[in-house]
């Protein structure tokens, strides 16, 4: 199987090592072919499925590249120029989907940063059954987006869903079109996503909280700090690295949202909850217009890289305070 290629041939390795001398210096000195043998299996994968497609994708984006047509004419930057304006059909869909991704991230990221931190701080106290709670909140993450999508599509069904029924029981409107109209569709997608990934962020926060030395809090107690001050001046600064990690991961996974939209709203109403990733996948792998799709993906990638830089910059400035 694929795995068998992994360990580089031992006899060769032994020989190569012997030729450079089995001396002590061999460890830090150059050792001929051996490093390359160790690297080879991964580098094969890396070249074929990361390096090659990165370059190839750029090349594709410069063509009117329909996967199914034999002729793929070179069009220069035309695919990108089409995206610069909302006048073209493709530019219009693209910016609508970028807006959808942006809105979804804007709504979901703050919730996914704050609520898990709250839950983690509660779980960080001494509690009976803490392991149980932690496992329960984490469980949906293991189930994956497909199960979560199916389940929430059912819970949110405007006509027969549990959520509308419960709303009716407590005197709220029981006919909210969760999956078919705005703003409800956003509420639904954000709620399902928070439910799904809350445990993931909680677990990372919790590990971070447990790294904070207890004597910092004791010192704060001696200084007469109140709980808010302890949070502001001990917890938050100590969590900075973890916060950076959680923020980056949450922003990037929100920006990559696909399954929830596909399974819960199918992009409805119209295509207003179709995310950028969903559009790129449909355009490239559904309709095989790969020139358009790759151009879109590079523009999206540019946005995501800028966002990551902004996050890093923000945390660096925080660190200087």
């Amino acid at each position: 199987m694929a795995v068998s290629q992994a360990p580089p041939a031992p006899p060769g390795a032994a020989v190569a090592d012997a030729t450079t001398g089995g001396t002590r210096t061999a460890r830090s000195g150059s050792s001929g072919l051996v490093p390359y043998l160790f690297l080879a299996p991964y580098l094969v994968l890396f070249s074929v499925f990361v390096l090659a497609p990165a370059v190839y994708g750029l090349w594709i984006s410069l063509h009117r590249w329909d996967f199914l047509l034999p002729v793929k004419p070179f069009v220069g930057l035309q695919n990108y120029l089409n995206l610069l304006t909302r006048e073209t059909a493709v530019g219009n869909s693209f910016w609508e989907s970028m807006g959808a991704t942006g809105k979804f991230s804007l709504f979901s990221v703050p919730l996914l940063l704050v609520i898990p931190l709250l839950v983690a701080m509660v779980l960080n106290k001494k509690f009976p059954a803490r392991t149980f709670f932690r496992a329960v909140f984490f469980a949906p993450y293991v189930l994956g987006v497909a199960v979560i999508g199916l389940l929430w599509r059912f819970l949110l069904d405007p006509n027969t869903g549990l959520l509308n029924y419960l709303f009716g029981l407590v005197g709220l409107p029981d006919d909210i079109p969760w999956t078919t109209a705005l703003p409800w569709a956003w509420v639904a997608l954000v709620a399902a996503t928070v439910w799904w990934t809350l445990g993931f962020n909680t677990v990372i926060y919790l590990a971070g909280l447990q790294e904070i030395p207890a004597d910092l809090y004791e010192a704060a107690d001696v200084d007469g700090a109140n709980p808010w001050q302890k949070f502001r001046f001990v917890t938050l600064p100590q969590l900075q690295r973890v916060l950076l990690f959680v923020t980056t991961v949450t922003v990037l996974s929100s920006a990559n949202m696909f399954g929830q939209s596909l399974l819960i709203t199918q992009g409805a109403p119209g295509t207003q909850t179709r995310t950028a990733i969903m559009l790129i996948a449909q355009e490239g792998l559904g309709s095989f217009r790969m020139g358009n799709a790759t151009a879109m993906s590079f523009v999206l990638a540019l946005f995501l890289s800028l966002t990551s830089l902004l996050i890093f910059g923000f945390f660096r400035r925080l660190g200087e305070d």
Partner: protein
Amino acid sequence: MAATTDAARPFTEATDAAPPSGGRTRWGLPKIAGFGLLILLTVLYLAPLLWMLVTSFKSVNEATRWPLQWLPDQWLTRSYDTILRPGSATPVLRWFANSMVSATAHALLVVATAAPAAYALARMDFPGKRLVFGLIIGTLFIPPIIFLAPNYVIVDSFGWINTLWVVIVPGAAGAFGVFFLRQFFLGLPPEIEEAAYVDGANRFQVFMRIVLPLSKPALATLLTLSYLANWNDFLWPFYVLFTPEALTLPPGLGRLQGQFNIDYPVIMAGAVVASIPVLAIFVFAQRYIIEGVARSGIKG
């Protein structure tokens, strides 16, 4: 290193470090409020899963009745018969097996290729090292969406479309595993390896017999994270697998929803079949899985 060992056992660590108040929880008002929040959240998490289970035993009428009918009149196995019978157009068990094979092979492939590469980058000097390392780390920051269409063309040229290869292999090229293991190897004390070289061992022997055994926790973490990522992958398999026998669970469940529309009992039965084994594994391995995730955050 300290971060790693602490993260490996968060709870025992915290419990041991807690002030010696006789091992009993002290219940102040904030603590009661916190506990209330946890109970509320637990209901919010368990109720939907329970609802999924109950619904899978209903008839279509019972599942779409308004006002809601909580429990079925008769607990029917119709939904399960529909998806589990041989020759079903939506063979959920087959998808489950495909997902198992795919996630297992993928996770092993990641570890088997990333570990030697990471070791070379952590402990060996060779011409081109900085270039290779720079390239690998550089791609950590490239959003994977740009690989989507070109990789489709590449795997198609291998004839891999609609086979399990397509969900096992390309994803293993990601840079995270190499980066993660390299960090771990750099943290190992080099003296042990040096002693082995003095005893006449070669690099391959040192790697296999000393480094890998010392790295079991990191290897297990990487295995777990890769397994979960592959198990949950949705977009890529959704587009590269299409015949019913070839699907993995996530695209299969998408297909189930498309085919059964509002036959919620069948859809929920599919979700149950997909969930139960994973939840069972999770119950036994949850510490391990959760701590793998927690560690990735602290190291990252």
